[in-house]
């Protein structure tokens, strides 16, 4: 019996696929090159985040165009859509949302599986490296384009010996929808 359809499945079926190994190895090459060029692990983490941001601000439109999503009513729904539809669509995996804070402005996206790290072992010399930091940037960039200023960072990472990947996502503010049209501007 086929498992029941989940929200991300339709979007996933709709989108063009590319060989996972090609994707994973390409990403690995990018990270290696950054390490060579920047020679500093913190700089690499920062650069990966920036690269992700630049991807995210463009990727959001593809997501909206192809996933048939309507406007989310609150940040809770947004986090759910990222975990169930967004990650599925672009990464082929789904995450779970957990650990909400009291005001529902902060949560964790937990990934058990992550194709980016299929062949990766972090050497001793790269202990501070947030190998998948690009994902944080992507989420931050994408949300900024739909009026949400957020902060995303890895708090758990399998490469560093944790059980799962955990991205802590924090909503800083809702940006105004339209430009401020004031007469005195």
């Amino acid at each position, binding site marked *: 019996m086929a498992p029941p359809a989940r929200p991300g499945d339709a979007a996933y079926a709709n989108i063009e696929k590319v060989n996972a190994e090609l994707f994973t190895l390409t990403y690995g090459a990018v990270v290696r090159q950054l390490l060579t060029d920047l020679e500093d692990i913190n700089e690499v983490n920062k650069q990966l985040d920036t690269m992700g941001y630049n991807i995210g601000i463009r990727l*959001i439109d593809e997501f909206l165009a192809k996933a048939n999503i309507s406007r989310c009513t609150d940040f809770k729904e947004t986090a759910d859509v990222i975990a169930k539809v967004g990650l599925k669509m672009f990464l082929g995996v789904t995450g779970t949302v957990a650990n909400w804070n009291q005001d529902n402005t902060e949560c964790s996206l937990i990934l058990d599986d992550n194709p980016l790290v299929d062949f990766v072992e972090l050497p001793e010399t790269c202990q501070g490296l947030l190998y998948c930091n690009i994902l944080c940037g992507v989420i931050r960039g994408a949300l900024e384009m739909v009026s949400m200023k957020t902060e995303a960072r890895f708090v758990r990472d399998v490469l560093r010996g944790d059980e799962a990947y955990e991205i802590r996502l924090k909503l800083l503010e809702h940006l105004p929808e339209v430009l401020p049209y004031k007469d005195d501007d």
Partner: protein
Amino acid sequence: MSQVYNLFVINKSGGLIYYKDFGSTAKLDTNNSLQLASVWHSLHAISMEFSPVPDCTGIEFLEADNFDLHCFQTLTGTKFFVVTETGAVGIDGLLRVVYELYADYVLKNPFYEVEMPIRCELFDYHLSNHIRGGKDRPTGGSFR
């Protein structure tokens, strides 16, 4: 397929980033197309402010004696609108397809600067194909 006269894309700050006419009926020169785009952007914004009910997302459809105007605003604030013959059908679907083409052939082009005027031949090509032929529905990147 209904006759589409022209297509406009406006970025979120109200600048015209793409204009194309199809056929000879409603051609506009650059100045007029810019004017029309900024007027539409403002009208759209005003309509949201004036709406008596909350959460209005602006004008989607304008009907005149000799043309229809269909507008689609994405959640990121980009507006796509087309001017068509009166009574044209299936235009909402067309605008969704144009959005997909924009996501694929404009935003994925690494040399396209976000929010800037669109000069992408692939976008032109697929757009014309779709509007003139009513086929060639895009399914994503070009790994074929």
